């Protein structure tokens, strides 16, 4: 009860302001970030799962065991089925009936489980969103099919033997990006009409996709249950498999958010430690007095530690509320990006994380200075000159570092990350400490040099050499962390944007006949569509490796290889190496070569365990083609450019029938170009990837904005450290200023010298921070984030300026009361 009153009195007396705010900020940052990261992740995953039209997909080349589906049913998972196959669609049975090669997708009634279809009632008309699928007897057509086949909504078409009514136009499907093999305009129909078509027979080229949606835990359990039942041709797919770019961006973003969160807590921790130290210093005499009045050290510890605990509870409640508010603001700011209609729910975990953070912060940062209180000698009431005995600094700092380490490891679950950041911060402390100490050692002048603000400030800096070095280290650590986050953030965002820069090809053209190549090239360049080179494609099958059948070879190496290569592959030839391919081994052939050689993609070569000099034999048509591997290429499968496993020199494949392919960028405003294109080249298949690319971009934008908002939050805790640190030196400044003013110094002189002193300290800290930030970014990017390091000259300018302005301002504002308090009041308190 007494402790409670003491706490209340301390609060009223303004003793707890910084300490309480630091804890509140730490809790708010952690709770806010965890809540936000959780909701962002759920939101993005939900949104990204639209690419699958489900949460998980089971892909197969033949119907799966019905028991598997029954098991999913019994686990309460929602299901839908898709059958995909290429076929000709006719308008009738007459000789002059229009016909078109299409890509049919037959879906069950529950399709799509996630996301929406964009549909229209007329070709290129107004688009509406729908979560329905075609009813039995109906068919929805790609808008391009209508002009091509001279159809209107309401007409009928034949898919195999089934006559179906065109009831809607299908503009986009959520999972269009996944069906990269769907060559030809889309025809969407009901799966129950399939038997009537009489197309799907045993041995037909049909792909089966089973869609599942439900709770993540249930899905994961089902995935595990399936794991050892799957054949090599069957795949259990999640977001990471279908959209690795999104999945990787999310992972990086989460790592960054956690890192930022841990650093934010670290900063708040420093503020807590500084505030607790000042609090304990100011309470040292109180404790001596209480002891002289008969309070035992146990009583003192009970009072202070229960106060601390109470403070933690109150700060946790306030901080959690603030954290919740912060993420609400974030979500609102990002509302434009959030295309999810239902905002994901909140779990309890972020609040637990916040509470534990408060407890760990207090125990590791605030407890040691408070423990030192119990060492206060009661004799101080008689003899003020007595030294303050207490807990050693090593112990104080040791527990602080341990606390942060525990928290960082707990947040990230990544020991390497934790140790790397700690080592970086530790190194910074050491290097910056030595540098600051060295720089602050000027030739010592006698006296306070109170002639001018400048001389007074500089003399004061030297006189307080050690305290200033410590303060410079803390300042530079705070600025360093801010710069570090800014640097990592911009390189992350840049890297994401580089992945899919403006002008990334967003449409593929395949099935281009040889006679159309020149015309297509001309049409694209006339319309200023930036395109990739047009590559020839010959279908061929790999049959032997070093004269061993592919089946035997893959059994010896990686059995899953057989599934990947024992099918028709797209083979191409080229004189020149594709621009963005990188030769990792061997060398590209000289122009005009027609030697029997091949360049193989690195990942496949690795899985097949083949290398330079190995012999591959392909079956092209009915002829066999023997080649030797002479180069190995690395390439980016996500570049949206034509990519090939096998590239041959010209001359080896030219005699075989080939089709051609390319990709190009079509601005969304010029989408109608496709109609013109399709009308002119009805046999060429256009694959539209723009919706997928746009969605990936939107997700990257969301994450980038989130990262920026979190950075803003970290800046608040950085400022708190600055204020706490300035406050720590306030008492002695009060005294000096009072004496100076009593002796006749003008307010302006004292105030000017304070501003100069803090700005100079900030300049120094900013410079040191720039140095250590560069060093840390180098370490982080080279060893942790797997990115290339590029120097950032601007931090050397921004660091010192930000330091001088921030610390100058913080110092000036905080210390203003030093000159606004009448000297007599200060002197009376001494």
């Amino acid at each position, binding site marked *: 009860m*007494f402790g409670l*009153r003491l706490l209340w*009195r*301390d609060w*009223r*007396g303004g*003793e707890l302001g910084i300490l309480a705010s630091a804890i509140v900020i730490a809790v708010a940052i952690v709770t806010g970030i965890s809540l936000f990261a959780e909701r962002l992740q759920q939101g993005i995953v939900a949104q990204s799962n639209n690419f699958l039209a489900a949460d998980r997909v089971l892909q197969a080349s033949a119907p799966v065991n019905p028991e598997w589906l029954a098991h999913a049913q019994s686990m309460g998972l929602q299901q839908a089925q898709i059958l995909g196959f290429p076929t000709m669609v006719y308008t009738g049975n007459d000789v002059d009936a229009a016909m078109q090669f299409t890509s049919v997708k037959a879906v069950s009634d529950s399709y799509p489980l996630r996301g929406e279809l964009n549909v229209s009632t007329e070709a290129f008309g107004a688009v509406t969103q729908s979560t329905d699928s075609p009813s039995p007897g109906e068919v929805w057509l790609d808008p391009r099919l209508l002009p091509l086949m001279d159809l209107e909504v309401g007409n009928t078409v034949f898919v195999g033997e089934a006559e179906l009514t065109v009831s809607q136009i299908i503009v986009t499907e959520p999972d269009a990006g996944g069906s990269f093999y769907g060559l030809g305009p889309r025809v969407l129909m009901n799966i129950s009409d399939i038997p009537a078509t009489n197309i799907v027979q045993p041995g037909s080229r049909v792909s089966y996709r089973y869609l599942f949606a439900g709770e993540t835990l249930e899905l994961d359990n089902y995935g595990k249950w399936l794991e050892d039942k799957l054949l090599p041709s069957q795949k259990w797919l999640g977001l990471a498999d279908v959209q690795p770019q999104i999945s990787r961006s999310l992972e990086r973003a989460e790592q960054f958010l956690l890192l930022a969160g841990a650093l934010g807590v670290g900063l708040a921790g420093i503020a807590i430690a500084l505030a607790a130290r000042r609090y304990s210093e100011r309470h040292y*005499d*109180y404790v001596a*007095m*209480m*002891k*002289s*009045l*008969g*309070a*035992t*050290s*146990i*009583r003192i510890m009970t009072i202070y530690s229960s106060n601390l605990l109470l403070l933690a509870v109150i700060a946790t409640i306030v901080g959690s509320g603030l954290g919740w508010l912060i993420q609400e603001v974030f979500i609102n700011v990002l509302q434009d990006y959030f295309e999810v209609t239902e905002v994901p729910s909140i779990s309890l975990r972020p609040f637990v994380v916040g509470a534990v953070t408060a407890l760990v912060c207090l125990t590791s940062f605030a407890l040691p200075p408070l423990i030192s209180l119990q060492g206060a*000698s*009661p*004799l101080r*009431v*008689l*003899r*003020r000159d007595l030294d303050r005995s207490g807990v050693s600094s090593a112990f104080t700092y040791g527990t602080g570092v341990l606390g942060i380490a525990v928290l960082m490891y707990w947040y990230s679950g990544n020991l390497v990350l934790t140790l790397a950041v700690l080592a970086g911060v530790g190194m910074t402390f050491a290097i910056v400490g030595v540098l600051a100490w060295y720089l602050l050692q000027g030739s010592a002048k006698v006296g306070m040099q109170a002639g001018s603000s400048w001389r007074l400030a500089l003399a004061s800096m030297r006189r307080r050499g050690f305290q200033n070095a410590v303060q410079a280290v803390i300042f530079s650590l705070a600025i360093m962390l801010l710069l570090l986050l800014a640097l990592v953030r911009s390189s992350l965002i840049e890297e994401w944007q580089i992945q899919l820069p403006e002008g990334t090809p967003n449409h593929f053209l395949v099935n281009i006949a040889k006679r159309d190549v020149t015309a297509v090239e001309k049409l694209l360049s006339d319309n200023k569509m930036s395109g990739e080179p047009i590559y020839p494609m010959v279908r061929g099958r790999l049959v032997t490796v070093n004269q061993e059948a592919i089946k035997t070879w893959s059994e010896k190496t990686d059995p899953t290889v057989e599934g990947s290569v024992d099918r028709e592959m797209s083979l191409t030839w080229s004189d020149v190496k594709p621009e963005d391919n990188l030769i990792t081994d061997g060398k590209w052939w000289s122009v005009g070569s027609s030697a029997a050689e091949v360049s193989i993609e690195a990942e496949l070569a690795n899985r097949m365990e083949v290398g330079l000099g190995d012999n591959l034999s392909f079956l092209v048509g009915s002829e066999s083609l023997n080649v030797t591997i002479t180069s190995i290429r690395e390439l980016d499968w996500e570049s949206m450019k034509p990519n090939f496993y096998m590239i041959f020199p010209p001359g080896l494949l030219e005699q075989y029938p080939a089709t051609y392919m390319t990709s190009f960028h079509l601005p969304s405003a010029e989408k109608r170009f496709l109609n013109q294109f399709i009308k002119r080249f009805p046999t060429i298949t256009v694959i539209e990837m723009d919706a997928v690319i746009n969605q990936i971009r939107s997700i990257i934008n969301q994450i980038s904005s989130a990262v920026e908002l979190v950075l803003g939050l970290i800046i608040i805790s950085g400022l708190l450290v600055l204020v706490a640190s300035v406050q720590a030196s306030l008492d002695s400044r009060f005294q000096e200023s009072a004496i100076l003013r009593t002796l006749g110094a003008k307010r302006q002189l004292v105030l000017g010298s304070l501003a100069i002193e803090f700005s100079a300290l900030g300049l120094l800290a900013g410079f040191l921070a720039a140095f250590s930030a560069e060093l840390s970014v180098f370490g982080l990017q080279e060893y942790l984030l797997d990115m290339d390091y590029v120097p950032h000259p601007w931090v050397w300018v921004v660091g010192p300026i930000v330091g001088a302005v921030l610390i100058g301002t913080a110092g000036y504002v905080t210390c203003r009361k030093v000159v606004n308090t009448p000297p007599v*009041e200060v002197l*009376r*308190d001494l």
Partner: protein
Amino acid sequence: MIIAKNLEKNVDTSEGQLCILKGIDLEIKHGETVAIVGSSGSGKSTLLGLLAGLDVPSHGAIFLDGEDITLLTEDERAEVRARLVGFVFQSFQLLPSLTALENVMLPAELNGVSGARALAEKYLGRVGLDHRFNHYPRQLSGGEQQRVALARAFASQPKILFADEPTGNLDSTTGSHIIDLLFDLNREEGATLVLVTHEQRLADRCQHSIKLDAGEIVADDLKSVTAADSSITKDDQ
């Protein structure tokens, strides 16, 4: 009430060990008022600190109410202080974040005594500050602050009151008022009073005085306890 035997206090300095007090023997009976006088640096405050159990001697023993406090730990001495001792300091030692009333309530609160508020109000009333309950130390004059300190000292109803230069920070008129108040209250409460002062007029108000010089008693009008026989003889002045 207070017995000190052969007290010695040494401290380590950069120039070797320094003897602050040596060969101090004294006995103060219940209800007596004793002044410890001497010039600056003679060891007055050190002796007061030892007698009050705020510090431990290098050699010798101190008995408070029959208990040798030199054998106790710091926490055990704190309990003895809580039970027996009150303080008045030269620099008042009020907590700046507490009001006058809260400062006076503090000892009772620390010791878990019920009715702390009523007790504090009573003693503040007795020092004439019943209109300043909710004022903070910085809003009070030096004399008023020392009156609060007196109220705090007596509110714990101590058997022994130690006062360290209680008028050292006050002008002579205010100082006289405080001394009057201190002695009046002490008479009413019947506590043993030990005060350190360098003011003769304050020392003259006490029944006995001990004069220190360079850490040794050079004159006292108490019956001393000799180290040899430990027998106590009374000297009635």
